[in-house]
């Protein structure tokens, strides 16, 4: 999977964390949320699902429908990743078709990110 953007300014961590809080307020309707794990020097953001979203089979949908669109608007964010969200290209394309342009944003897959484990 490719990055969201090729070149980007550094991510403002405070802005990112505020946006994550916004996403969490949305996800609290499902008694779940996300938390920030790390931001790489290249703008790759890694988050972790929390609450009722932990281990949920619908994480790929939440990721592409809610998390990625929200976080990718932040300047400097080049990719977004979380465990339990990796799906096939076929499924990603199908999901993007249903979600529309927002859902078409690519997600950095765990297998292709650089560096050690998150």
């Amino acid at each position, binding site marked *: 999977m490719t990055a969201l953007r090729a070149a980007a300014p550094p991510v403002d961590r405070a802005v990112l964390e505020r946006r994550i809080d916004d996403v969490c307020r949305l996800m609290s309707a499902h008694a779940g949320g996300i938390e920030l794990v790390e931001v790489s020097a290249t703008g790759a953001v890694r988050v972790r699902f929390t609450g009722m979203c932990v*281990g949920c089979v619908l994480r*790929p949908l939440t990721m592409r429908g809610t998390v990625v669109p929200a976080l990718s608007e932040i300047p400097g964010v080049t990719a977004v990743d979380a*465990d*339990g969200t990796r*799906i*096939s*290209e*076929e499924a990603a394309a199908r999901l993007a078709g249903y979600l529309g342009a927002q859902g078409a944003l690519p997600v950095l897959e765990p*297998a292709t990110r650089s560096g*050690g484990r998150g």
Partner: protein
Amino acid sequence: MIDDIFIFDCVIHVYDLSAENTIPRPEAEAGRQSMLAIGGSLRWPGYQADGPRFDKRWTVEEIYDMVFVKAPTDMAMAQVVPIFDWFEDFFAPVAAQHAMAQRYPDRVLFCGGADPVYRGVDEALHQIEYQIRDLGACSMKFYNGHTERSWRCDDEQLAYPMYERCRELGVNVVQFHKGLPFGLQPLAPLSPLDLERPARDFPDMTFIVHHLAEPFFEEAISLASRFPNVYLALSGNLNLAPIAPRLVQERLGRLLMQVGVDKLLWGSEAALAGGPAPYLRAFMDLEIPEDLRSGYGYPQVTREDKERILGRNFAELMGIDLDAKRAELSSAAP
């Protein structure tokens, strides 16, 4: 190495399946035979026809030949199997695993084993201390399922003191045989769900569940996808690739999707499951077919996935720099 991928096998055993090590009781012999049967079911048919005998006390040289000479393994962990139900000196004795690590220190790590109901908690704690401090164990293996005296991994009187002792001694990776009952052992204690509370209560420790806890695969998936400190060892599971590739593809696809590749570990179960060479080749050739990708959303397994599963993940858990180790082994090669 296979296709230039470093192989770090997270579980091999220097077994003692000899008649001499079997307690002289009919149920013990039946237990020994059930273990031999489980091993046989994981091996290639050719192994069973022409291969070595398995009902014996293996030597470290034989295991080395099977794992490192006849297969492209680079490193492995020799694990104690503290099954006392049928054996005088465990199924895979402490001394034999330690001897393997002593004999091949550049390639083999020693994983100890203890049991809190065998001779009581105090003796188990003593064994943990002895095996870590004096024998250099860098992990501990636990088998809570027994024919009569099973215990729970979330028992605060029996199990928690062992985890605490490991942690005090600097060992933060503990491992569990889950699923895969030996013969007529009760299955229920082998569910991995009794690891939920330990994983929650010891967040700084890593809990490895072996065998995908089969037949508790769903439970294993749930556990590993909810707890960041629970890893899954595909010990023996990938050996089915040449026999039932579809089953392995389904399992692997689900694991990649819901658990994540970072928490999956390769384990051969040699010697009982035979030499790992054919299973490694079958895994390298394995792909997730189009109908599973499209119909279930399972991602394709990549070369990087295979590299992580076959060695990099376990090396990171054990604090081994793979690049440095690769160079070390290369310079030591004749």
